[in-house]
């Protein structure tokens, strides 16, 4: 009963979110904001998997994000490939990149892992910037409309309003995937390796293998976001490696709270709403984003959800024995 009610609740929520841009007036800005939130949230889920469940800071997920976009752009413009082919290629490319980076960093942890993934991202940007086959500093322009042929029907789109159903669909699939991952053996093993390494070792888990597998699983998530972003923008360039995306992914992962299922969506939505509707200019937005990231971890490490729990607990005068257990189950 409870799971059926949850499923129904989730379906209603998705339907409501689907109608949201139309209800908000359906302007180009509304649609582009909504579609971009969905795409960036999917991108952030890649980093979130590594940060929340492995406890490592990957600064290299811009490689997968940009890699997915570059693969899609190259195949769509030079080979005329349809959306299924470019998506499959983006996933495959992300897996290959993740294996290379994952194996190289297999024995590194903490800041060495972060340093190396970060250096890899900077080097990838340099390669994209200098390599003529990848469009060099100009990037790849003129990406055609996304077309996804299905039996009896072809989904096609290039404007944000057309891509919105697909962006939302990708987000929903990603959230379901993360939900599934959190309950999978691998997800639990990752948490155990992060929080109780001794216990994990006692149970015969190989922490390196767990870390490598989670890393590999997280890469295609960011890559698929990049894939869709390439079509939304119709342009792919070395700017996709910029620190902005890195800081955005990390902020989205920590803003609502780590290990909160919908955390990255909420975080991304808050950040992009500020940038699209309350912008202080490029540099001002940078200051805001950086300050949000730093102050959340300094003042409320549990994120906004943790803050919410704190307020709720203070409000209810009598202690509720079921509440902390439920909160822990939500987060686990």
């Amino acid at each position, binding site marked *: 009963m409870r799971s059926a009610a949850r499923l129904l609740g989730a379906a209603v929520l998705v339907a409501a979110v689907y109608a949201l841009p139309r209800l908000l007036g359906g302007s180009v800005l509304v649609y582009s904001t909504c579609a971009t939130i969905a795409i960036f949230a999917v991108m952030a889920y890649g980093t979130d998997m590594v940060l929340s469940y492995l406890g490592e800071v990957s600064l290299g997920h811009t490689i997968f994000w940009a890699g997915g976009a570059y693969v899609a752009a190259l195949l769509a413009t030079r080979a005329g490939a349809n959306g299924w082919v470019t998506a499959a290629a983006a996933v495959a490319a992300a897996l290959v990149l993740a294996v290379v980076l994952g194996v190289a960093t297999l024995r590194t942890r903490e800041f060495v892992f972060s*340093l190396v993934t970060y250096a890899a991202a900077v080097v990838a940007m340099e390669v994209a910037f200098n390599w003529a086959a990848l469009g060099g500093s100009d990037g790849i322009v003129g990406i055609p409309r996304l077309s996804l042929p299905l039996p009896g029907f072809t989904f096609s789109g290039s404007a944000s309003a057309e891509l919105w159903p697909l962006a939302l669909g990708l987000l929903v699939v990603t959230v379901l995937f993360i939900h599934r991952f959190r309950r999978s053996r691998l997800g639990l093993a990752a948490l155990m390796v992060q929080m109780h390494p001794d216990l994990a070792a006692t149970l015969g888990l190989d922490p390196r293998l767990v870390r490598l597998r989670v890393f590999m699983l997280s890469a295609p998530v960011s890559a698929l976001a990049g894939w869709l972003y390439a079509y939304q923008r119709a342009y792919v360039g070395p700017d996709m490696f910029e620190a902005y995306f890195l800081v955005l992914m990390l902020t989205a992962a920590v803003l609502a709270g780590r290990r909160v299922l919908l955390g990255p969506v909420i975080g991304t939505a808050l950040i992009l709403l500020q940038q699209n509707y309350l912008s202080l200019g490029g540099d001002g937005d940078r200051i805001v984003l950086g300050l949000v990231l*730093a102050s959340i971890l300094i003042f409320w490490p549990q994120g906004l959800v943790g803050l919410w729990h704190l307020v709720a607990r203070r409000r209810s005068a009598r202690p509720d024995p079921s509440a902390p257990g439920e909160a822990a189950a939500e987060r686990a």
Partner: protein
Amino acid sequence: MNVAQQLINGLALASGYACVAIGWTVLLGAARLVNFAHGQLYMLGAFVAWAAMHRAGLPYWASIPVAVAAVGLLGAAMQRLMGRLMLEHNLTSLMIVTLGFGYVFQGAAARLFGGEPQTLASPLARGTIRMGELWLSPQDLLVFGVTAALFALIWFVLEKTRVGATVRAVAEDPKLAQLFGIDASLVYLGVFVFEAATVAFAAALVAPRSPILTSMGFDEVILTFVVVVLGGVGSVLGTLAASLGLGLFTAFFGALVSPAYTTAAAFAVVLAVLVLRPGGLAAR
């Protein structure tokens, strides 16, 4: 290609890398802390020196202490904000928080100093010293000398003095050190300010080589990371050796193959080292 000239170029590059990396090495090796805003502190050091010269009309030499003091103060402010995370030794959060600070610095610097590329003009950077076929700039010679002196001083302080012993004790176990009456948060403050001040000092010396941009922090610092990882995290002598190797590698790779891909090639070397020797070259 002139081998001797490339050797000189390599040494000049190496001393720059080492000079920029020393603060990070001490922070990491002596205090086991990280600061991912290092590149932005470098950028701020260069721009504060530039502003002191071009907006306040100070000579180059007087602008260096201004940059060191300003960025050192900023480091102190960062440390005070992150004090709890440091005592908990929460490296994951420290990495992300310092990355956030770096992003704030980049945005703030663009507001304060504008988005145009600038030149930090040192009077020594324009001249050349010639020895027959070979040449180098007096600025390179200065960086080389200062870096050598700095490394000798740091090695001496960390290994041979009571201050160094205190810092190492806190790095080993902050709680235990506190039981012995050491104020761990004061030590963290000192090391953090030292890191910020040295990178500003390094920026004032090294930045005159190339145009400076407020967005350069994220990229500029990458070679520091490469040096620190290669040298074996936190090892002062390892950092020196790795800087030397990287400087020579960069000079020769740039001359023989392609200057556009030197960072990529250096990174490939790092990946190979990590697979073969995860602790870096200095690991036993």
